[in-house]
């Protein structure tokens, strides 16, 4: 009697588990043969609107070329969180993230090949952006360059580089400027970023949180942000409220893209995934990129949008730090330079 009841419970649980596995199998297979193919693009937050538009254009291109319908699903979130989901088993066909570091981490699980960055043009970064300042209308504190951000009466908004990929670009941009203006004196650069971050009253955990703090809560005099986000904020909230200030020196942000080899091989989506990323470099792809305020790579498109994206003095992470891994270790890992800013002086 007792055993029977126990047995039936075990059977119910086994059936439940079996049902779940069957379900997930039928969901992931069965794409061959039919004339539609589905791929998943795992991306970070600020690219949502851009990829929505790009997916339609790409689907048309792919249909004309192969006669196959392609449906691109999108997933957005913080760049690091998205990378962890893929590493934990989210079957992404392509990843389009904010930092090379997040894709580098995937090579450890052989999800992408170690030479992923050389598989597409321009270090696998089809568009770029840079870090600029957003100030309140009329620029009441007269902010022109990075130097103004360390003045004691200036309050600066930027997210926490420990939790936000975008914020790491902000930090590195400040660092690049400091090294440039203090003749590569690292002590002075540390001093500079320390002063800058002492002016930050709130360290939001993500970039959109910081936007809210600056825009909705009215906190801070200047908001360090991506160029495309600054344009978005102005377009959505009115040009009469904010202005963009372009600093004399900044960093070239190169959000990378990669095909997730391990998953596309399993799903048989290699070809379309590869084409999806390559088409980003084409003329139509570059046009959409520019329309969504990312800086294009193609010379003809750059010239077309020159008024929107003024030429700037920009350094890449590769030039300044020798790659993301080195930058991450030096600045953002535990006991790195960023952590030292906040430790009490001993």
């Amino acid at each position, binding site marked *: 009697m007792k055993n029977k009841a126990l047995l039936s419970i075990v059977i119910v649980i086994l059936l439940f588990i079996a049902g779940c596995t069957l379900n997930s199998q039928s969901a992931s297979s069965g794409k061959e043969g039919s004339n539609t193919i589905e791929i998943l693009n795992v991306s970070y937050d600020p690219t949502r609107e851009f990829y929505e538009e790009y997916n339609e254009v790409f689907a048309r291109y792919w249909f004309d070329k192969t006669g196959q319908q392609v449906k691109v699903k999108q997933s957005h979130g913080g760049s690091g969180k998205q990378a962890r989901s893929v590493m934990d088993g989210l079957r992404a066909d392509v990843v389009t993230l904010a930092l090379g570091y997040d894709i580098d981490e995937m090579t450890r699980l052989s999800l992408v090949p170690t030479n992923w960055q050389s598989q597409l043009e321009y270090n696998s970064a089809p568009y770029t952006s840079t870090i600029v300042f957003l100030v309140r209308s009329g620029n009441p504190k007269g902010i022109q360059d990075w130097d103004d951000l360390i003045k004691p009466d200036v309050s600066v908004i930027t997210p926490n580089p420990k939790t936000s990929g975008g914020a790491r670009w902000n930090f590195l941009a400040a660092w690049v400027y400091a090294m440039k203006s203090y003749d590569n004196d690292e002590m002075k650069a540390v001093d500079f970023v320390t002063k800058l971050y002492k002016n930050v009253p709130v360290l939001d955990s993500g970039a959109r949180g910081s936007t809210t703090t600056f825009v909705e809560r009215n*906190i801070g005099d200047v908001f360090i942000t991506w160029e495309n986000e600054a344009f978005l904020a102005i377009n959505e909230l009115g040009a009469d409220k904010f202005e963009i200030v372009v600093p004399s020196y900044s960093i070239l942000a190169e959000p990378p893209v990669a095909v997730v080899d391990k998953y596309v091989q399993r799903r048989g989506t290699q070809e379309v995934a590869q084409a999806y990323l390559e088409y980003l470099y084409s003329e139509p792809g570059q046009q959409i990129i520019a329309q969504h305020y990312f800086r294009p790579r193609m010379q003809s498109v750059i010239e077309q949008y020159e008024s929107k994206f003024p030429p700037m003095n920009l350094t890449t992470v590769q030039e300044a730090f020798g790659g993301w891994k080195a930058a991450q270790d030096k600045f953002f890992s*535990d006991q790195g330079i960023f952590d030292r800013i906040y430790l009490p002086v001993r």
Partner: protein
Amino acid sequence: MAAKKKKSILPGFGIGMGFTLFYLGLIVLIPLASLFLKTATLSWSEIWGIFTDQRVIASYQLSFTTAFFAALVNAIFGFLVAWVLIRYNFPGKKLIDGIVDLPFALPTAVAGIALTAIYAPNGWMGSILTNFGIQVAFTPIGISIALIFIGLPFVVRTVQPVLQELEKEVEEASVMLGANRWRTFRSVILPEVFPAVLTGFALAFARGIGEYGSVVFISGNMPMKTEIAPLLIMTKLEQYDYAGATTIAVGMLIISFVLLLFINYLQWRSSRRMISV
């Protein structure tokens, strides 16, 4: 009493117990064990290094003190809310009773954003308080408010049924025997409901320690000042330092477990004293 072999009056103890252990194992113990396993990939000195890191200590202090304070406030005011809901009749009582549960249903991030909007220096509560020189958002006070918000239902819902069961006759007897109102409350009502209040306190406290979603928005996340332990765990995850993250989590679990055991002990003592009286 001697007939131990005799079957219990209630059948199904064996299977009931078996199921309980199986279920707890599947849902609670196995996931928690994996936390410990992940932590065990580090050496002792690495683990010790993480525990004694200044920022980790500071975040523990902040998380535990704000959670304690919030649970304390909830214990007092949640008790009052439960009291009013049980003892008095008034129009809209059902509605208010329903509102109590809302913090449970709301995604915590939404709660956090809403509270920050209200208590930020330009929010309508925040702007009033700033006039008095009190800053709420982006300080430990703000964190406590978020934790009070999410912890409220715990105390109300554990105290309510006990108050409901309280018999009026006992109070009447106490008054007849010459006790004043305060004495009646202190010696008759309070001992009866105190274990329930403690349970509610413990639940709200435990919830507050681990709370992340509602706090990140209102805390400002300043290292050493308003950085809660769950946020530090998130920063470790962001560096793909899974073992480091679980180490901080295991530290929190151990401290919470000891504190909860202590609270349970207090509860056991107070309920025993009540019975022996």
